[in-house]
């Protein structure tokens, strides 16, 4: 035979890893560490070839900048590498299940991204003459129509920039309606369940209302007796999430709406959980006066690491006249943007510059048209089916807080961890080691050590089964007293557990030049 003397080993050898010192670079194979721009770049380097200046004389009138800004630049390859390395330290829906309850982390179709970048949408200025933006206004009007139809509501304010901004819009409309009846000085109290998102009480307070908590009953829903007792002539309205933050549908929602209306108040519905009922039930049929819709949750526009969101608010006949400026009207075959008070409308004011999150509108409509009425109903059914499946499977080892069926999310508490020494946060961090983004933890506040799981319709059965197997395994490990895996977690993430206490005690909120450099600069 001919001999191959290029003896490259083609199998690894087992070696005990514990003996190895850290790497020289601090990198760990594909896990690459990356310093700050301010440490990588310098003031001379640039990654943009700005065309050269000519000798046109300046007309800056004596307010020119005298000193350096101190902004380092990166060449294009350095910038690419910097941000790609950073990106690899993030978990994302595109990598695996992202079961954050109340956040609806569903698949973000790339068709949405493609359409939002079409120049006829992306490269259009909000103050262009109306004749040059008819298609943009048509898109807003079309999305408004779809939102009204899906919710059974007669009007929609499109400009709010996010869910909480939509809440503000809805509550401002309620305030305006109350003021118009001359009851502004007396109707000052807003009711909200203690399980509400923090944005609800914060919004009410930002509108000048006081907030009164409604307790939950044993089934995790509004305690009707306590609620009715709190109604009175000083009540401006109720802010209710439905399905609520425990993942449960408020069965008595019509009775709640009727009671609030009978007391002269309004019904604000937090639409954060709308994904459970799109196409299955319409808020308009439930007696809602205002509800924001998180386009970045329900209608698949990307969360983008925390934004941008978009929060159109559907309004009842009673609140529609108070919708903020601007808004789009259709007149025969043309569209018009109304930027000033006109006719019978009594807009409460303006919420933002220009007309709202157009880029998000394009994405949301792209999603809605893709799914259609039939697909959106199927999506909600699948979201609810997935949540109930997770609840059924995990109940074997974990403690569900309330009896099902649940809607689009499954709520567990920490009773199953009692006396194990493992807390909700440890359990969540151990999920990171198993390759999952943890569920929402410690919210809602009505159960102890809450774990709120929202799988959405985007997960396959196979993915859910692996996810459930992993959580059941972790629950058994905790009960078996193997606490180290929890307390040490995460072991395999880009960072070990981070010290939030130190960050809050001595906040470092920006990069500062190293001291020697600062001294040298001062000496110059």
């Amino acid at each position, binding site marked *: 035979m001919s001999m191959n003397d290029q003896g490259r080993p083609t199998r690894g050898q087992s070696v005990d890893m514990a003996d190895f010192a850290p790497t020289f670079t601090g990198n760990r194979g594909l896990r690459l560490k990356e310093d700050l721009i301010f440490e990588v770049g310098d003031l001379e380097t640039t990654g943009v070839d700005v065309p050269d200046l000519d000798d046109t004389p300046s007309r800056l009138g004596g*307010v020119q900048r005298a000193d350096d800004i101190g902004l380092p630049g990166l060449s294009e390859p350095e910038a690419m590498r910097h941000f790609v390395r*950073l990106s690899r330290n993030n978990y994302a829906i595109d990598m695996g299940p992202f079961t954050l309850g109340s956040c609806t982390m569903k698949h973000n179709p790339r068709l949405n991204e493609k359409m939002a970048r079409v120049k006829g949408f992306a490269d259009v200025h909000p103050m*262009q003459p109306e004749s040059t933006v008819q298609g943009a206004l048509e898109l807003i009007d079309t999305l408004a129509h779809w939102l009204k139809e899906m919710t059974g509501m007669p009007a929609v304010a499109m400009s709010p920039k996010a869910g909480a901004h939509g809440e503000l819009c809805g509550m401002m409309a309620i305030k305006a309606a109350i003021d118009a009846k001359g009851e502004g000085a007396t109707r000052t109290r807003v009711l909200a369940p203690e399980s509400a998102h923090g944005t609800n009480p914060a919004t009410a307070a930002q509108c000048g209302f006081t907030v009164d908590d409604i307790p939950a009953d044993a089934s995790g829903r509004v305690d009707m007796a306590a609620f009715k007792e709190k109604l009175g002539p000083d009540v401006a309205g109720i802010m209710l999430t439905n399905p609520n933050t425990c993942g449960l549908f408020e069965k008595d929602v019509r009775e709640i709406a009727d009671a609030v209306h009978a007391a002269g108040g309004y019904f604000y519905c937090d639409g954060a959980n709308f994904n459970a009922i799109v196409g299955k039930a319409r808020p308009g049929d439930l007696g809602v006066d205002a509800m924001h819709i998180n386009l970045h949750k329900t209608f698949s526009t990307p969360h983008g690491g925390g934004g941008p969101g978009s929060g159109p608010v559907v309004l009842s006949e009673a609140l529609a006249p108070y919708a903020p400026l601007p808004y789009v009207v259709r007149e025969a075959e043309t569209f018009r943007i109304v930027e000033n008070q006109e006719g019978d409308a009594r807009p409460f004011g303006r919420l933002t510059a220009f007309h709202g999150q157009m880029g998000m509108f394009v994405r949301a409509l792209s999603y809605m048209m893709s799914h259609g009425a039939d697909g959106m109903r199927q999506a909600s059914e699948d979201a609810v089916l997935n949540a109930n499946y997770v609840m059924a499977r995990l109940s074997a080892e974990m403690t569900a807080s309330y009896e099902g069926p649940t809607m689009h999310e499954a709520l567990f508490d920490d009773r199953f961890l009692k006396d194990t020494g493992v807390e909700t946060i440890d359990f969540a961090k151990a999920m990171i080691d198993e390759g999952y983004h943890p569920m929402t933890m410690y919210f809602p506040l009505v159960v102890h050590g809450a774990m709120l799981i929202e799988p959405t319709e985007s997960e396959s059965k196979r993915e859910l089964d692996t996810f459930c197997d992993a959580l059941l395994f972790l629950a058994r490990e905790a009960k078996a007293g193997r606490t180290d895996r929890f307390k040490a977690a995460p072991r395999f993430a880009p960072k070990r557990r981070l010290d939030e206490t130190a960050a809050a005690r001595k906040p470092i909120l920006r990069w500062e030049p190293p001291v020697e450099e600062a001294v040298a600069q001062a000496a110059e």
Partner: protein
Amino acid sequence: MRYLPLSETDRKAMLNVIGAGSVDDLFQDVPADLLNPEINLPDHKSEMEVERALNAMAAKNVAAGDAAFFLGAGAYRHHVPATVDHIIQRSEFLTSYTPYQPEIAQGTLQYLFEFQTQVALLTGMEVANASMYDGSTACAEAVLMAGRVTKRKRVVLSGALHPHYADVTRTNAELIGQTIVQPDPGVDGAEDLAGLIDDETSCVVVQTPDVFGRLHDFTKLAEAAHAKGALLIVAFTEVVSLGALKSPGEMGADIVVGEGQSIGNALNFGGPYVGLFAARKKYVRQMPGRLCGETTDAEGARGYVLTLSTREQHIRRDKATSNICTNSGLCCLAFTIHMSLLGEAGVRKLALLNHQKAVKLADALAAVPGVAVVNDAFFNEFTVRLPKPAVDVVNALADKGVIAGAPGGRVFPGAGLDDLLIVAATETNTDEDIAAYAAALKEVL
């Protein structure tokens, strides 16, 4: 349906595990008479069909790049490097959430820390937050913050503040019992804002370059405000201007707010944009919005977390500094990437190039009979006075392929400024665009 992984077989198997007969059994808490309403909307469509429908709408718009384009007034058309859009579309950035689990969100957290530093440097302030929805909402939040800091309720706004910023501020502040004082808008003469500040005034809000494009040094106004215990809030709508102009921090501003869209972000017909918010460090606990801070992990490695969260709604609820819950995530990433590509050298050159284009445009328009440039000094935007209503001129010019600017009558309806036109130029304008504008304007006047 292409977005849904479950098969009919899966669904049946899952219902068995749950012990439910049908999916509608899971909806048993919804009043039965309201379940499964008829929805009058079309059924699902293929990717191709959706593209066709949306492209048809897009085609009815005139894209800025297809015109000679000179419109600003709070949103500016700049060239964004291709690298920016590539990076923000990476799955790890596009499809991640608010970094509530910092160990697996260091990518987002580190760029937020970099963003906060860039904004602080540009504005000349000590700290900046992780962004707001846009410049106008940042302005309103700054006024609410000044109320918390000073425990006062009287707000003075400059008449040359972008009217959307003023309206958003008024809408928010009046709700909680604050009083707004604002002189009428005008381009002639200077307003006496210092004279409007009294012992009850929480803040005075000014803008530079202002809505007419005029430049200001607010150093003396800062002193006047501080002498009365009031804060100075400086707003801007064109962040590129900070590459050429004295920073608000240097003028003595206490809070600086503005629109960051120009860096990294397209016009998008008004949103999403990115609000910048910076302040003196001593006020940090009264700031709205998210803040990212540096810390260490269990092995002593440097890392980043969201911090000072007790200001925020999810902890303080009705006593929070703001109800804000999102920031402008991806837009803020786009800003950070574009700004780090530019760097000191790039952003200063870009700013001067913008200014040179505007000077050339001003000279070209001033040469048109009947047209007068109002500003002595400006950055990349200025105001001209026309011999007839600017709205009509703008509409006539649109038919000639020129997007000419923002008419005074649209920016300030009913204020008697109908003959004014606010015009912007950026690095995207060619000398041919400028010549075409001047020629077309001559024709329609």
